[in-house]
């Protein structure tokens, strides 16, 4: 389907990980109408998957009665995506560094690092239950910083 530039599109899903794929397919389809490169699309899907997984598992505690609300907007320079859950939020300023030597072997805790690393801008609302991310074309050099 054609997506209009600068218009917000919304998708609400129940809190179940099997719902993630449909959202990602919709947004990847939308990305084909932007200037983003394949590497940018990789970055967006990675960050989006992390945001959705966090919202479902940590925000809504996988309660299928709670929704995750996704909004996205195609812009001339890229895409803005926000993901909001119905949880009470978290303190995104005090997340342990998963690259610290003593945390390297832990199987979890890398989602926020990946989101921050692969998107150009990322912010949270005050409550900490909504993340908004922007990705523009070709800033992939930042991925390894």
């Amino acid at each position, binding site marked *: 389907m054609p997506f209009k530039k600068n218009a917000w599109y919304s998708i609400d899903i129940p809190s179940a990980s099997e719902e993630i794929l449909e959202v990602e*397919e919709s947004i990847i389809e939308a990305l084909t109408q932007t200037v983003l490169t394949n590497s940018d699309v990789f970055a967006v899907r990675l960050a989006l998957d992390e945001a959705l997984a966090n919202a479902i598992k940590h925000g809504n505690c996988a309660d299928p009665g709670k929704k995750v609300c996704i909004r996205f907007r195609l812009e001339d320079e890229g895409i803005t995506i926000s993901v909001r859950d119905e949880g009470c939020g978290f303190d995104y300023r005090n997340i342990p560094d998963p690259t610290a030597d003593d945390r390297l072997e832990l199987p979890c805790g890398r989602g926020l690092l990946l989101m921050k690393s692969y998107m150009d801008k990322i912010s949270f609302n005050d409550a900490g239950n909504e993340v908004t991310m922007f990705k523009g074309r070709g800033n992939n050099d930042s991925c390894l910083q």
Partner: protein
Amino acid sequence: MSPIKPLEIESKQEGPATILTLSGHIATPESQVLSEALERLVADRAQKIVVDLYGVELITSDGLGALIRARKAVSEVGGTLVLSGIHGNILDVFKMTRLDKIFSLYPSVDTAVEAICR
């Protein structure tokens, strides 16, 4: 990146080594499938495991977590789990998360098998 590709998993035996070949995308929905495949190998007492990621085009933190859990479980019973074929965007993810410091990475399945069966 290509449109969403389902995760495909193939398992084969090469002498004492078990090769798990992955291709496609390992995002949150597929990570559980990967976890179950790795848990089966551990339950079957596989001691020398090579997970080949050459065909993987996306891996998220849940997929990384599945690999870390499997590595630990294999290690606890005296076995070894190594990775092969990681390149491009996937290698970047491993470097960014510093998981290249805890996993043994090999360029190909052959080099990995040679190393763990030495």
